[in-house]
């Protein structure tokens, strides 16, 4: 399993190179990567077909119980096959579709990267592994949706899809952590065995809702559905791959995967059924109001995803089988539909179903495959989708929830979907010829994928037995855990489900036939409370809030930053001072003598005068007085080295100041009186606090160990008598080296600034 994941990811990273050197056939070459993964899966089908599974485990974070665990059972296999087979077909299709664009190498990279991530999701046996791959799919889909990044709409759609699915991803992560808190494990096998522990925990509800949030955002359930129609800005192959066959089904997959752990409780069933039903009907209803071919497909996809969630919510073996089969049949016809929409768009330059007509005469092959897909979509026999429709009707009739509301909703949405299917799949090809060019030439790689998918929907007829035994039943079994005896048949007898199917056909055809009377195009669904509006509102509010808080915190004025820092420091230190008795009042508070009194007062006066002086020169001189005064303090208290240095440095500083002073502006009096008062208050409070801090510091007990060490060993170890010097050039020589470096850099900077000439 690891092997095929690595294979697809390496294909992704090779893609730009392959595109560069094998430009014309790069899609075909790249298709080999997912295709070989597909073959590998088929080769191993025996293991899962009898209900077994195989695993591969690598140690990762042992202490956190997080291992890379690949777990392949019937369900993984079904999804894995769809992902890899579609991956190959999409790559081939892209060979034709992406021909004339810039940056196609990157496109292939993200396409295969997505395929690998998606495959990772479905074969993960550890929740953390699953989550990582889950996020990678969101991440790569951002680049795929935003492929036409020069278009604003495209960037908006990509960002929206990313934000919505990543928000869900975060919720999902939190949900997984709750599961871990309950069970102490991320291992799916362990969780399935201990599902009663999970369900009886008080944390079950919150974990469930967080995980559902993740699944619902990914699978575009109402009210998070709005990103999917917008994501139609993506190139057609991306829509076919991500937005019909794989990524949007990740949420559905997750529900199926976790059904044995979280499912079969009232809250699970009712939530899933309610959300699924709503999404199913709203999606179908909104699809009929669209004119854009891809938008129609997007909304019907939302409806289909709703149906899947509904079926999982019903939770009977029959419903699971119907859901699994529907995953497959939906991927076949919807994938084909999206790809055909891409061809039509590319060749005619239009996706407007209202204006497209008579295309049969210009692209007969495309028309045939489109009509096949439309019939499959509508659920006509003998298409495989007929069976899944029948099964879902049967499942909807056989549940204790919502009385008979479910089949009614299902019927209504199927009728509406069928109308959309006919409109998108039939209407553009029939009717009067339009004024198009000659017959369109459609290359082999363009038509191959839609042809195979459309034909697959009908070819499955001949393999129902094999398909059921090897893929569908094992997949359903992974969800329900016991063998489910649901046979795939075309004729279950003349029963209610069959009548509902007949009603669907009649209703769908009726709507399509009299579409000019109904004028569905005119329906407007978006209102002020539409989720997409709420999304826009939230997004702009977040921007506004961050803008405002940035304006306050990042004013761009140095003094406000300093004021904030100093005030914060003052308040916190003052709080500590007020709390405790930190000054030792037995300190030596005596005044030393008249000389020191004079010295100290002199320094203070000089400092204060320097602040109010109106002349630059006197301010600099006063600053010098302060410096010399401090040096004298050093002399008086046993620090002759400091004093010498201070005298030297102070002299140099004053010289530099004076040299440059007359090139400097005169002191200007810019601040007004109020801000001066404010600054004096802030500064004085801080000064008083620093005085108290100094007293507090000297109130603590002095630990002489370090000083004593130097006192004892300066001569013995370093052969120096001046202990301060020995510390600087011997014990802490590297620090001094750093200091010298700083000085050297400053000197270089000064030299540069002085020599710098700026061309005007």
């Amino acid at each position: 399993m690891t092997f095929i994941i690595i294979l697809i990811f390496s294909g992704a990273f090779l893609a730009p190179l392959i595109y560069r050197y094998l430009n014309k056939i790069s899609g075909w070459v790249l298709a080999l990567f997912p295709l070989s993964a597909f073959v590998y899966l088929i080769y191993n089908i025996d293991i899962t077909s009898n209900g077994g599974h195989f695993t591969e485990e690598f140690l990762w974070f042992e202490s956190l119980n997080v291992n890379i665990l690949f777990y392949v059972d019937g369900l993984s296999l079904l999804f894995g096959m769809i992902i890899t087979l579609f991956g190959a077909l999409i790559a081939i299709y892209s060979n034709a579709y992406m021909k004339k664009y810039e940056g196609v190498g990157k496109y292939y990279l993200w396409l295969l990267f997505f395929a690998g991530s998606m495959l990772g999701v479905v074969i993960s046996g550890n929740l953390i592994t699953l989550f990582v791959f889950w996020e990678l799919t969101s991440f790569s889909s951002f680049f795929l949706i935003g492929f036409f990044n020069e278009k604003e709409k495209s960037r908006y759609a990509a960002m929206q899809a990313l934000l919505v699915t990543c928000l869900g991803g975060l919720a999902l992560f939190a949900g997984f952590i709750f599961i871990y808190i309950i069970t102490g494990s991320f291992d799916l096998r362990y969780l399935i065995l201990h599902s009663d522990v999970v369900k009886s925990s008080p944390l079950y509800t919150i974990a469930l809702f967080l995980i559902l949030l993740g699944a619902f955002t990914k699978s575009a359930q109402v009210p998070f559905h709005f990103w999917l129609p917008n994501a139609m800005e993506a190139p057609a192959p991306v829509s076919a791959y991500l937005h019909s066959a794989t990524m949007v089904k990740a949420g559905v997959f997750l529900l199926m995967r976790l059904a044995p752990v979280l499912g079969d409780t009232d809250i699970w069933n009712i939530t899933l059924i309610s959300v699924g039903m709503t999404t199913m009907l709203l999606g179908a209803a909104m699809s009929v109001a669209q004119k854009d071919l891809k938008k129609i497909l997007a909304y019907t996809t939302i409806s289909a995803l709703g149906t899947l969630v509904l079926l999982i919510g019903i939770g009977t073996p029959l419903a699971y089988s119907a859901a699994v089969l529907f995953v497959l049949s939906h991927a076949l016809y919807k994938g084909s539909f999206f790809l055909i929409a891409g061809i039509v768009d590319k060749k005619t330059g239009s996706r407007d179903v209202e204006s497209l007509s008579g295309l049969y005469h210009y692209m007969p092959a495309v028309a045939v495959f489109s009509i096949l897909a439309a019939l499959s979509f509508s659920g006509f026999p003998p298409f495989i989708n007929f069976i899944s429709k029948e099964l879902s009707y049967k499942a909807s009739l056989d549940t204790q929830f919502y009385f008979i509301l479910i089949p009614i909703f299902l019927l209504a949405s199927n009728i509406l979907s069928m109308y959309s299917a006919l409109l998108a799949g039939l209407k553009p090809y029939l009717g009067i010829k339009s004024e198009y060019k000659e017959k369109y030439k459609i290359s082999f790689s363009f038509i191959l994928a839609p042809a195979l998918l459309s034909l697959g929907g009908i070819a499955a007829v001949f393999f129902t037995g094999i398909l059921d035994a090897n893929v569908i039943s094992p997949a359903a079994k992974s969800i329900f855990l016991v063998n489910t005896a649901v046979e795939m048949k075309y004729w279950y007898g003349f029963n209610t489900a069959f009548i509902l199917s007949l009603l669907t056909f009649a209703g769908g055809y009726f709507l399509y036939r009299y579409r000019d009377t109904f004028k569905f195009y005119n329906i407007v669904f978006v209102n002020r409370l539409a989720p997409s509006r709420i999304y826009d509102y939230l997004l702009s509010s977040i921007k506004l809030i961050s803008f405002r808080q940035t304006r306050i915190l990042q004013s761009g004025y140095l003094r406000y930053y300093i004021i904030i820092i100093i005030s914060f420091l003052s308040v916190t230190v003052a709080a500590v001072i007020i709390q405790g008795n930190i000054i030792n009042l037995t300190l030596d508070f005596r005044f030393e003598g008249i000389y020191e009194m004079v010295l100290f007062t002199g320094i203070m006066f000089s400092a204060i005068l320097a602040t109010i002086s109106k002349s630059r020169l006197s301010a600099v001189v006063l600053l010098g007085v302060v410096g010399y005064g401090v040096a004298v303090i050093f002399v008086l208290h046993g620090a002759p080295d400091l004093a010498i240095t201070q005298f030297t440095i102070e002299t140099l500083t004053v010289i530099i100041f004076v040299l440059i002073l007359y090139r400097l502006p005169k002191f200007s009096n810019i601040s007004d009186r109020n801000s001066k008062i404010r600054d004096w208050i802030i500064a004085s409070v801080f000064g008083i606090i620093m005085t108290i801090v100094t007293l507090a510091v000297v109130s603590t007990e002095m630990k002489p160990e370090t000083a004593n060490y130097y006192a004892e060993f300066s001569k013995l170890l370093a052969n120096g008598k001046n202990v301060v010097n020995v510390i600087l050039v011997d014990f802490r020589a590297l620090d001094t080296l750093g200091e010298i470096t700083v000085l050297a850099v400053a000197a270089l900077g000064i030299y540069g600034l002085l020599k710098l000439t700026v061309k005007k």
Partner: protein
Amino acid sequence: MYLLLSILIGVLFTTGIYMVLRRSIVKLVIGLALLTHAANLLIFVAGRVNTPIPPIIGKGEDSLIPPFADPIPQALILTAIVISFGLTSFAIVLIKRTYKQTGTEDLDDLNTTDKIEKL
């Protein structure tokens, strides 16, 4: 002794902070220099000032004999003085350059590069 030194440190901090809050860029540098003195003195006092005897080993002795002034704060301050000299000189030249280039000493005129455009 400590009381007076503490008050001196407080005054130096007050004047230093007041000066760095000014809009005039020259005053800002003077403020930085005052803050340097305040910080150095604080470190110095933190090491206690009980004796005028410097930490120098006398002739014929192998190690310091108490009492002596604590050498560690002195080593720290020595470094600080030199570094702050580098800082001050650089700042002075930078101001000169800035003034020559922009013709203003008002910090409020110099903050345009990180001003956020209105939404």
